[in-house]
């Protein structure tokens, strides 16, 4: 009798066929999400090449993709950790730690002696891409490294850089930053291996020490030489630190990667099948599987799908009537409105608000009666001075001369405030709240979904009482939608039209953006069309925004009037999904879109500028000509490199001639009095502080404030741990 072990994973199918204790057939293939087809091809080959016979032989399945397949061929399902453990116990009784890394999951198994046998402690994670094979491959693809070259890249002796080990999309962003900073790809890949081992050791071992001997299994562990080196390096270090007794053997043999590391789950299936537990595992041939591939999966598709974003034309008409009464189906990417037009009443000044974000800079001009006269934007060129120049040039060209006040918000506000002579620098939460409350004074919640970030602001007492910012995970932002639309060749302007055309949509899973990408491929393969997938993506966005990224489960508790703003809400498909999601949670919710969705931050700033003008102080604005003539010089060399962490960002110091500036005579790149410095190219706020010398100045200023305004907590800390004499 022959026994087949078939492992249908997230990226590959692996199978072996054993007869009389000997492996007669084995293979693995990437399935490119065509799992059933790959399994069928394997079975047909096994029948033809090794005589696998329906009704006579046994077949056991394991792996995340085998759930729907095994009933179709009569096979039995074995949980993958159980399968791997069975194989390890049989062939490696001396092993006490196993790491198996798969395409989209990672598992560790600890074996410990227990009574007569061995006990197993299993940890597995499959919810997030951090620490998995996809995590490495995604970034390698971006860096255009061929799979063969990737397999040969090394870890030992390479300089390592900090790469987020938590999320594949952020790791990719980190890698991009490193590439821009001139870091060689070899070092980036070594850093990825480091991140994967770190993620496995830090989160998956739950405080257990992996002790020798160690077995590394799964594709990434087998194929990536550098990953093996990283494991060896870290394990040997832990053993030395923890004084783990290491068997007197060749150190290389203590961490082993068997040549058939890919097949352990399949081998385990055969082991389990061969021990008589194979009842119910009789192979029944490929007929049902063929039927499923040809017809069944399409019926399944219809059954699985949920209804589209709109169920009928009437519903769509009512929605458009409410949210796009002017008949325009606005979509992201559309050029921001040019304002309501009009000019400033004679003798009255214009008020400027600018929002300097990380990717774009926006400006608006308001009249003192709060009419929006102009809006413009510039995509960031990496030099905030140039971005500012660009924006102010646009305003100047639009004919504005008499400026009452200027307010800045966004990441660039601190950098540019003195340079342009702004009257107010306003934090972005306040700017967004001002803009929303101006139009909707009774707003409870603002949900701002931009291209790269998601912000939710909860208002109480007219203040931003709480806000959520997605900083750990890229899930839920608009760039992802844009990426998918681009892939389908659909212009963003027509995203909503396409999405509304879908009558039923696949159910995409909320969560990790990396897995969402592969889920899309999977759904596409089942026959879902571009329109249907785009609709589904819009439908899942609110879940990602509210639940996954912002961790707000209870929407009812935050209020009932929701304001949607940010560029992504120009897409009416997203708005429809948001409206359905929010009203599902808060039936009496009132959901409104900010009339200037994409420019809300700049409008809020302009309203603050209006406050400043009304307060009567003369504006500090340096004037359009002065900004146009700004004299600056940039420095990028070893002296400007940031050393606050191991990222070593190659910063640029931009010194701008600004009368009355104090200069930086103490700096390694000294700036004379009359010159102000803007630091760019840093990847985190820490890099805005030049070096330890400046940090001392900052600290000294803080200490002074602390002396004047005491903190009772400081007194507690100082006194509680002070040595005192006993009073008895």
């Amino acid at each position, binding site marked *: 009798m022959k026994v087949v072990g078939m492992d249908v994973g997230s990226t590959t199918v692996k199978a072996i066929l054993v007869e009389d204790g000997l492996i007669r057939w084995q293979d693995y293939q990437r399935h490119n999400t065509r799992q059933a087809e790959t399994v069928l091809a394997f079975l047909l080959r096994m029948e033809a090449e090794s005589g696998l016979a329906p009704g006579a032989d046994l077949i056991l399945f394991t792996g995340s993709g085998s759930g729907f397949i095994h009933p179709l061929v009569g096979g039995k399902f074995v949980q993958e950790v159980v399968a791997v453990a069975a194989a390890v116990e049989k062939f490696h009784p001396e092993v006490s730690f196993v790491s198996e890394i798969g395409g989209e999951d990672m598992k560790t198994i600890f074996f410990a002696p227990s009574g007569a046998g061995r006990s197993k402690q299993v940890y597995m994670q499959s919810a997030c891409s951090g620490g998995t094979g996809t995590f490495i491959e995604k970034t390698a693809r971006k860096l255009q490294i061929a799979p063969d070259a990737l397999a040969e890249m090394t870890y030992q002796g390479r300089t390592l850089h900090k790469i987020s080990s938590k999320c594949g999309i952020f790791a990719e962003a980190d890698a991009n930053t490193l590439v821009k900073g001139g870091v060689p790809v070899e070092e980036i890949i070594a850093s990825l291996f480091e991140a994967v081992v770190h993620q496995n050791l830090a989160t998956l071992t739950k405080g257990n020490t992996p002790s020798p001997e160690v077995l590394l299994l799964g594709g990434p562990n087998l194929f990536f030489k550098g990953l093996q080196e990283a494991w060896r390096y870290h394990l040997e270090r832990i053993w030395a630190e923890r004084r783990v007794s290491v068997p007197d053997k060749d150190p290389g043999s203590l961490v082993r990667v068997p040549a058939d590391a890919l097949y352990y789950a399949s081998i385990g299936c055969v082991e389990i099948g061969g021990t008589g537990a194979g009842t119910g595992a009789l192979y029944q041939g490929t007929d049902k599987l063929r039927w499923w591939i040809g017809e069944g999966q399409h019926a399944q598709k219809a059954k699985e799908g949920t209804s589209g974003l709109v169920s009928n034309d009437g519903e769509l008409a009512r929605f458009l009537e409410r949210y796009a009464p002017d008949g325009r189906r606005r979509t992201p990417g559309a050029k921001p409105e040019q304002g309501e037009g009009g000019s400033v009443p004679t003798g009255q000044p214009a008020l400027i608000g600018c929002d300097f974000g990380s990717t774009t800079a926006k400006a608006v001009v308001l009249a003192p009666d709060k009419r929006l006269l102009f809006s413009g934007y510039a995509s960031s060129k990496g030099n905030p001075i140039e971005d500012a120049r660009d924006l102010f040039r646009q305003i100047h060209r639009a004919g504005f001369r008499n400026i009452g006040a200027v307010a800045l918000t966004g990441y660039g506000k601190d950098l540019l405030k003195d340079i342009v002579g702004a009257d107010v620098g306003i934090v972005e939460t306040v700017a967004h709240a001002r803009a929303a409350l101006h139009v909707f004074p009774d707003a409870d919640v603002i949900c701002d979904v931009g291209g790269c970030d998601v912000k939710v602001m909860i208002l109480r007492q007219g*203040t931003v009482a709480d806000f959520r910012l997605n900083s750990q995970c890229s899930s839920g932002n608009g760039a992802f939608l844009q990426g998918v639309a681009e892939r389908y060749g659909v212009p963003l302007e027509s995203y909503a039209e396409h999405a509304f055309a879908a009558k039923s949509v696949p159910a995409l899973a909320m969560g990790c953006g990396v897995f969402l990408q592969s889920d899309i491929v999977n759904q596409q393969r089942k026959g879902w069309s571009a329109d249907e997938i785009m609709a589904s993506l819009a439908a899942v966005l609110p879940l990602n925004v509210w639940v996954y990224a912002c961790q707000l489960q209870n929407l009812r508790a935050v209020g009932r009037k929701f304001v949607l703003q940010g560029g992504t809400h120009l897409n009416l498909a997203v708005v429809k999904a948001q409206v359905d999601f929010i009203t599902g949670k808060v039936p009496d919710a009132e959901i409104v879109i900010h009339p200037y969705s994409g420019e809300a931050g700049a409008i809020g700033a302009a309203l603050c500028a209006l406050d400043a003008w009304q307060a009567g102080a003369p504006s500090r604005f340096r004037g359009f000509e002065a900004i146009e003539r700004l004299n600056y010089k940039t420095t990028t060399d070893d002296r400007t490199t940031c050393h606050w962490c191991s990222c070593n960002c190659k910063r640029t110091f931009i010194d701008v001639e600004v009368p009355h500036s104090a200069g930086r005579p103490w700096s390694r790149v000294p700036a004379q009095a009359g010159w102000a410095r803007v630091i760019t190219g840093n990847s985190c706020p820490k890099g805005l502080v030049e070096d330890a010398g400046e940090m001392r100045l900052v600290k000294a200023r803080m200490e002074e404030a*602390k002396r004047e305004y005491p903190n009772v907590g400081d007194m507690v800390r100082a006194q509680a741990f002070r040595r005192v004499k006993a009073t008895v």
Partner: protein
Amino acid sequence: MTALGIDPRHVVFSGDTTEEQGRQWGRGRGVVDCCYPVKCMSGHYGELIFGQKRKIDILLSPMIRSLPSVLNGHVAKSLACPRVMAAPENIKAGFMKERDVFAEAGIRHVAPLVSLAEPPLAAKELHLALRDVLPGLRPAETRKAVEAGFAALADFGDSIRARSREVLAWCARGERPCILVLARPYHMDPGIGHEIEVDLQAYGYPILWGQYLPIDPDLMNWLFGDDITSEVLRSPLDIRDVWPSSYSGNTNEILWAAKVGARLPWVTCVIRLTSYECGMDQPTFTPVQQIVERSGTLFFSFQDLDATKPAGSVKIRVETIAYYLERASADIIRTKKERMTAPCPLVEAASRGKLQSSASEA
């Protein structure tokens, strides 16, 4: 310790919590607990075991079951958080799982259950735990040392409360605003509370902590006199009006301090700090917020604090708070002052008279 004859120079404390401490000394000693103030103890243990110039002999890590409290009236119990109480055993396990690190280092791990709300019981518990490591220790000696400990704690509390009063008086004299932090005591540790209040202090606001608000009778009468006259409360240190399930010491104090913050005119903003998944704090979120906000005082909370300081989001939040504080403080002080009927003892030379009801119920 000193009263037991131990040279104070022989008592060392682990340092402030830092991520580095956790990485260097606590990594891989993992605890299956989502509470960071519990998890970070691995780093503290590691620092004491491996990081001292002179090896320590005893690692004393009491499992504090109950806490002393100044509150009275309807206060059922003053228990410590059970998770934090159990932490010493939990953390110890991480150092004994595969090898007994304590035995290897020649260190005794002493983790007595201590009921600080019941001093006589605390003395017994400590005697039982310490007699093995301090041979010849007598019960009477332990009792005396425990008394010395409570006296030191009382002095400590009094001196800090006096400083808080000075801060309030300074605010009252100049109509200046201050910020009240409502948090658990461990949030004063820079590695757990991430010094969020320090960032606000830099904007020019003194910082008070709920645990150490002044409780002088004159001030208490000024704040709570009406409630006592109308018999809503039996004592100014009572929380029956807001928190019926008063069994947890630190929780009770947070609720009480919220009431004080809501009444004190110069507290124009209350900051709530709470750590990730804190089950003790969760039920108090809404009551505390409502107590504070209904008085017109600004309220902001920093929830889900964990090992890493979310520096970017803290910066935005702090700037947001500073903006509203600057705009609203003067109005808040005025409105809250208008509600007070009697002259303020912080500025008036009023005597620090007796509380309207006796605090002896404690």
